[in-house]
């Protein structure tokens, strides 16, 4: 029994692979930005004294963290459909991924918020800053800075997990691979290429987050402290 790999037969489909990879990156980018916003709001909400808001945020976070992503995707997909609302697979995928990563982001950001020393907030209050100004100027960036590695790992994981969006025929990388392997009967080669492409996408995202970190945390850049 010998292994015979025929990469050229698969690689000639490179435009499809490329399109799939780009779509995966787009999915990840949208869900990361929206999920970061949603998660941060949920983390703030969970910390408020309003029992209704903090309870709602807790239910959201715990529900999402204790159900499979694929089930969440189906719930959004079929849920919207049964309400008579028609959206593209891409939109549904972004929505489901956002809801999913928002819950994990909320937990990570909550840890970041809790790591801000009480004295920082008192000093800001003593300077007459409003609550919103304190969140914006004093808490948010240092909180993100404290959890940045955990946060960015979560977003890379999200990109990898977006492969299950192939199940609702969003034309992302894994869905493309499924077509190609059924066309070419070269499944092993196809998924080797796809795996390599996912590694490249991960590296691209990590490089992006590294660059974003330089912009967000100028003190790190100035003092040369690695993140």
């Amino acid at each position, binding site marked *: 029994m010998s292994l015979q790999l025929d990469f050229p037969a698969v690689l000639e489909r490179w435009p499809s692979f490329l399109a799939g990879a780009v779509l995966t990156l787009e999915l990840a980018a949208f869900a990361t930005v929206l999920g970061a916003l949603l998660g941060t709001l949920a983390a703030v909400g969970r910390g408020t004294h309003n029992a209704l808001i903090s309870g709602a945020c807790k239910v959201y976070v715990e529900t999402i963290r204790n159900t499979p992503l694929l089930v969440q995707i189906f719930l959004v997909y079929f849920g919207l459909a049964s309400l008579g609302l028609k959206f593209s697979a891409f939109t549904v995928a972004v929505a489901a991924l956002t809801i999913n990563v928002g819950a994990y982001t909320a937990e990570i950001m909550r840890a970041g918020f809790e790591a801000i020393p009480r004295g920082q907030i008192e*000093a800001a209050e003593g*300077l*007459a*800053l409003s609550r919103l100004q304190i969140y914006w*100027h004093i808490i948010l960036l*240092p909180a993100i800075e404290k959890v940045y590695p955990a946060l960015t790992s979560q977003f890379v994981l999200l990109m990898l997990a977006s492969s299950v969006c192939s199940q609702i025929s969003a034309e992302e990388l894994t869905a493309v691979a499924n077509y190609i392997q059924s066309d070419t009967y070269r499944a092993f080669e196809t998924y080797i290429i796809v795996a390599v492409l996912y590694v490249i996408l991960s590296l691209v995202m990590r490089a992006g987050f590294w660059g974003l970190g330089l912009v967000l*945390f100028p*003190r790190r850049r100035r*003092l040369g402290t690695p993140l």
Partner: protein
Amino acid sequence: MQQNPSSDSIVSLRDVQKSFGSLRVLDGVSFAVERGEVLALIGRSGSGKSTALRCIDRFEKVDGGEIVVCGHRVDRPDVDLRALRQDVGIVFQSYNLFPHLTIEQNITLAPCAVKGLANSQAKDLARKVLAQVGLEEKLHAYPEQLSGGQQQRAAIARSLAMQPKVMLFDEVTSALDPELTAEVLKVIEQLAADGMTMVMVTHEMGFAKGIADRIVFMHRGKVHETGPASILTSPTTPELTQFVGTGNLKS
């Protein structure tokens, strides 16, 4: 030891009560601070002096009594906290500079965000207040690049930039070694000479004696003895005698 705070007091506390759970921390505290006056709150740890100071800026809510600060009724639940805190500057033992901002940004943040100062004006202001504390060259440094004494001076400058009518100092030199303590005290002395109204909780008895117009000695949540700085050398109550006699008067 009760006084009737006069109406032109910058700060006045009358019969202030405060408990943490079953622990009565302030038990009928009254004192007043006039414009331009420097008042030193002294006493043992746990005597209530820091709590009394924090009540002035409403970092603690009082259970009873009356606090008036620059016309704000601080004891009332409807006090406008942001208006109060524009009139009152507070400096903490642990400096509490914002670590992610440069010294300049630390100073300009509140004048821009709260008072709506233009960026260029705020930067001029930052230079001015940093010169006051002798730190002009640290304008673009980050807090962690400064020594403890420099951080505390920067924190004082940050507070000054809001042009408060009264400044509160909560054991601002307790985390510093004697040399750094001296450089911070020098800045505070200069402020006093410039006529700033100040209330300070301090363990530096020599300093309190040199700078304070009035001493309030707190003991078990009450104002136990009060008077001019000379009470430190000739105390009338046995508690203050014991307190200043335990080596606290070394400067």
